[in-house]
């Protein structure tokens, strides 16, 4: 095991050397800064997870779950500001809503109207979740007198996301009401002062995400079934109402998870994995697929929804690929994150090493990055962002819009514990 990091470095270098020109891109395209923790010895006892981050007024705000969120837990949403250079400004962390009971999970954050709005799901009564939001200033001050409930009631209201058009915030989530058995997607406008508008149905669920690209909102969602794991997207008005019917932007796969970000002047970028390895031989190839959704809300590249039959080679929109099921092979799968750096998009995704009897199990996940022009990777082999022998997963990304980015992620600490780590990235 001790030789594994060195072996990985050799593998990445060998790949870069073999690809000649790409080696220059790896060296010059993006600088990856040193890893640093966001909160050491926090109140959560070493259980930190699901980070998110946003940039505004010269600083990044990172939010995450601090503490055990399962039975008997009391996880809270914690935040810290990080300077553009990567200095943690709130070393003790800021508890966004130190409520008395229940657990808080899955925070998301956006900047607009001079404030950061943080939204999360909260199992306040120990039985079902509500969607709750709060705000924090760039100076690190909690702004609202108390968190506001965006969506409550006796059924689950979960998986919120938030984006801002600069003057207000749009929060999306999935929820159940009455005697329904199927989740629906909703949106509501929240002002910088904490006033919540009426909920409107978006048609986007599950796992709704929302992004502002400078002129319009796009919501994306999907991943509900084995055969129906497609990602759909629809443009939303500034009140959250859909401006049409959802369009399939990435074809189905098992357990689709995806990321979404705005691409000013061009649309939005959706990134999602393809197929997992399968011991029966059906799975593959694996890929991390990028699709540029244009201003009309339609995919600009169609390789996300229409692949050549029996595809075996990397398609233009594939940022990464896994095909071989042999010792030393890797496979992209799972969470990703993207942000616009002022010139083009940057994507960070999970790449697993394979193990097991048939080399179809995942072990030791790394995080890989690439600059993306539209939907095409400029760093074809990928640039390692976090590639230690620990599990590095669940990336989040924010950009200052001028080539600087902050990548945050979970890093396994053993015994089920994880820590939130960060690195500053700089693109050329």
């Amino acid at each position, binding site marked *: 095991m001790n030789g594994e990091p060195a072996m990985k470095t050799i593998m990445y270098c060998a790949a870069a050397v073999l690809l000649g020109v790409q080696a220059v891109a790896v060296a010059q395209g993006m600088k990856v800064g040193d890893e640093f923790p966001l909160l050491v010895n926090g109140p959560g*006892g070493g*259980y930190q997870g699901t980070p998110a981050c946003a940039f505004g007024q010269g600083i990044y705000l990172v939010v995450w779950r601090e503490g*055990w*969120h*399962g*039975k*008997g*837990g009391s996880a809270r949403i914690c935040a810290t500001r990080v300077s553009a250079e990567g200095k943690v400004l709130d070393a003790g962390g800021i508890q966004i809503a130190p409520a008395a009971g229940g657990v808080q999970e*899955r925070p998301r954050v956006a900047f607009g109207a001079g404030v950061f709005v943080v939204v999360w799901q909260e*199992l306040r009564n*120990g*039985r*079902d*979740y509500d969607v709750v939001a709060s705000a924090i200033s760039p100076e690190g001050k909690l702004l609202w007198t108390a968190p506001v409930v965006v969506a409550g009631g006796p*059924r*689950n209201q*979960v*998986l919120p996301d938030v984006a801002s058009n600069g003057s207000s915030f749009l929060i999306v989530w*999935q929820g*159940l009401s009455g005697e329904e*058995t*199927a*989740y629906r997607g909703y949106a509501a406008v929240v002002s910088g002062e904490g006033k919540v508008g009426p909920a409107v149905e978006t048609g986007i*669920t*599950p*796992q709704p995400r929302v992004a502002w690209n400078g002129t319009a909102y796009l919501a994306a969602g*999907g*991943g*509900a*079934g*084995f*055969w129906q794991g497609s990602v759909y997207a629809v443009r939303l008005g500034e009140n959250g109402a859909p401006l049409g019917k959802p369009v399939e932007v990435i074809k189905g796969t*098992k*357990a*689709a*998870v995806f990321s979404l970000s705005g691409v000013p002047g061009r649309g939005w970028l959706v990134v999602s994995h393809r197929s997992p390895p399968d*011991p*029966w031989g059906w799975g593959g190839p694996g890929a991390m697929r990028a699709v540029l959704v244009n201003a009309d809300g339609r995919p600009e590249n169609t390789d996300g929804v229409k692949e050549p039959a029996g595809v075996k080679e990397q398609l233009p929109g594939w940022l990464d690929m896994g095909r071989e099921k042999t010792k030393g092979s890797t496979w992209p799968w799972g969470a990703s994150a993207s942000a616009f750096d002022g010139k083009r998009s940057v994507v960070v995704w999970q790449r697993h090493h394979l193990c097991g*009897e*048939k080399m179809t*199990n995942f072990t030791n996940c790394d995080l890989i990055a690439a600059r993306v022009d539209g939907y095409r990777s400029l760093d074809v082999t990928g640039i390692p962002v976090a590639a230690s022998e620990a599990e590095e997963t669940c990336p989040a990304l924010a950009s200052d819009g001028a080539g600087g980015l902050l990548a945050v992620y979970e890093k396994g600490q053993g015994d*089920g*514990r994880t820590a939130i780590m960060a690195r500053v990235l700089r693109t050329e």
Partner: protein
Amino acid sequence: MRCILFATMLLGYAVGFGAEPPAEPDDMPLIIPDPSAGEWLVDRFAGNSTAGPTFLQGPAREAGGLGRCGACPLPDGRVLIPFGGGVAEVDTEGTLRLVAPVNPLNGTTAQVTANVMAYNPKDGCVYLAVGHGLGRLIERNDGPWKVEIAAGKADHAGFDDGALKDARFTRIDSIVINGRGEIYVLDYNQRIRRIADGQVVTLNASVRSAGLVDGPLEKAAFRMIGLGGNLCGGEDDDTLYLSDHWNFVVRRIDLKNKTVSTVAGMPKPKESQPAKQSAREKRYNRNSDGPALTWASFNSGCAYVCWDPVNKALWCGGPDENRFRWLKDGQILTVIGAKGAEKWPKDALGVPAESVRLVWNAVAAVDSQGRAYLCASSDPHGLWRAYRKSAQGR
């Protein structure tokens, strides 16, 4: 008409109406409903088909992210769910919470998810695979449950027998615990190993793809290489059943007499060309119901077994099943999904069992009331629970 007549006679025979088994005809239906099939209902138990792959707690039927998971019913009515993100608990109020962040499927083939955790009535603990070792869950009320190693070492693979701390396991695929607290595991889909009295002992000798030989356990041969088989308990503390995957059969292991017998799955036809096969031979490698050793078969091998202590039947099936079948009184019969519909209400309660359609499925566990916990890869969103109308569903 002849087939229907035979099936009717067969059903009559299965429930004890016929004094003599009928003479075998030239053909019979692939699907033969169990006499109890009309009595069964299916509830969504945990998970929701619209929730998505992100793990969500809360009301169990609104939970997300369980994927294909297992089940471990506890005597107090709670049910533990081993899934890719850890171990979750559904309490008696129907609330699902994460209790342990360890992945209990990581050490298994994760293909079947039946019998991946087991409750030990002697020490009140739940056992599961942890890396290469056998772990024991330690319940807590103020944080994640702990897992302590009960045998082997999590980070050391091997097949060494011996004292608990010296023994080594490679990949524990199934865990069975009998009323005496003896633990039996299927290790790396090859070896049946007994853990009792502080010792680990391997019971079978021919462990690789060695054919189909019944008789003394130490000389019995199985064809288990590759994708998973599955081990479960039986009608008493001295009986195990094994889904002998690539022999397409169910094997019964008599621990008291140390013998192995084949109890379900027709033999592989001598004639391999379909055009020359008889109607009976064509049933091989299909989800065929009927007399267990002559007309019944499994599609793509026999992947799981799960004993039902109330109905005194053995749920069993191949990896490519879309019905749930059991072995009872020498017959393999369909209990759930005889008329499976593509658009059945997957998240509802009280669904007539015949309309259920779950593909690539398995019975993950059966509780002390005879309720079967159903999982499937076609709808990787948790569990369903099947029960007879006379039993208490939730």
